[in-house]
């Protein structure tokens, strides 16, 4: 299992079979505040890297969800439909979609945890 992060604060965890789990980082859930709705795509939808694949909404505003790598959606996290607050409780455990990567080499463009922490420390958000 290896986890990568994007500049727009999504994470991508790759499992042993090479499938990915995409969610938002703990930093992102804190910045959003109370999550009240997650707009998720459909199973089978295909996305190119950096397209928006849905949105996540706090009380105040909607934020686009940006896909970190090109993919096909294998599964959506149905638990978030009824209980979007799970994202606040544990953002890393509560992924939003499970994906099949269509161009696995794209992960090279993403940050690992150390690089992401460095990014958070040095960039004004």
């Amino acid at each position: 299992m290896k986890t990568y992060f994007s500049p727009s604060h999504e994470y991508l965890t790759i499992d042993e079979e090479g499938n990915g789990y995409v969610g938002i980082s703990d930093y992102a859930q804190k910045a959003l505040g109370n999550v009240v709705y997650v707009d998720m795509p459909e199973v089978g939808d295909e996305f190119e890297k950096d397209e928006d694949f849905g949105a996540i909404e706090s009380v105040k505003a909607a934020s686009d969800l940006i896909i970190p790598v090109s993919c096909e959606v294998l599964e959506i996290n149905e638990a978030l439909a009824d209980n979007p607050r799970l994202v606040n409780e544990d953002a890393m455990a509560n992924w939003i979609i499970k994906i099949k990567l269509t161009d696995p080499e794209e992960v090279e463009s993403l940050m690992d945890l150390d690089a992401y922490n460095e990014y958070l420390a040095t960039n004004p958000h």
Partner: protein
Amino acid sequence: MEDIKKTCLHDKHVGLGAQMSPFGGFDMPIQYEGIVEEHNAVRMACGIFDVSHMGEVFVSGPDAERFVNMIFTNDVTGAEKGKCLYGMMLHPDGGTVDDLLVYVQGVNDYLLVINAANIDKDVAWIVKNAEGYDVNIDHQSDNIGEIAVQGPEAETILKKVTGLDAISELTFYTFAHYRIYDDVDVIISRTGYTGEDGFEVYASHDVTRKLWDDLLAAGAVPCGLGCRDTLRFEVGLPLYGDELADDISPIEASLGMFVKLDKPEFIGREAVAAQKAAGAPRKLVGLEILDRAIARHGAEVIDADDNVIGFVTTGYRGISVDKSIAMALIDSRFAAMDTNLRVRVRRKVFPAVVISKKFYKKSYKK
């Protein structure tokens, strides 16, 4: 963003760790601890808001009553000293220049409280229309601070901090001048924008800063504009820029009760009288979205045949009301209660139903 303005409490918000964002030309606190916590503090205890960005214009002089009646939809004729009146200034075509509060300070003596984002536009409008009237227009927005103290414990906390037992005598939508601290004059009104009991205090910058600190020390919760919007929305109060605009009339916004058509003359009267007589083509309604999806400002409202019949003006997942709700300006033919409609949120369409826009019951001290 070079010209962004700061209120007299700006450094205090930054010191409290508020999330700051531009609103109405000012760098304002959106939230401190969180919108939900602050919203609930106002519904259940006492929250305080920096509303020093609001504009204050004093209008006095021999023709002041006649002049205010000409630019204002509500009726100040013979209004008693100490009354606050809500209403609008209109364009000749009935569109809304701004919504505002008029404080009756005495005969031919008024304070107009206007929205921050409209200060320049409003002052220009007031000055332009004052031609031919013997009035003195004194624009004091840069010199006056304002704090809103809101919630069921607002009276107790404001009394404790100011020592003014007399504020208990203020009824809803009245005000008076008081002296606090080192005998400084302040205006306190029993008004607000939350649907809860509460007060608004107008004072000099120095007094506003001291009062803010004292209110916090007395247990009031600092509240940002984020929950100010959720609170006013849940009780169906309009926000200029959402429910009212240069091209939205108060009749369309279902605010006809603040438009006194029995006055013989005011700017925009003919247009709104015609709308009222014929029925406005658009009407502001409440919507419940029958899903968790949130229809926000600008979301399209569509009928069964996919025709766009209007747009959402404000929408939230309610905080005191656990539903996805919205206010929307739609074709009047679809405005009846219980009408089934749909809203488009990004790529998806969700069912919605017309409900009362008073989503949550107000608790004013009448």
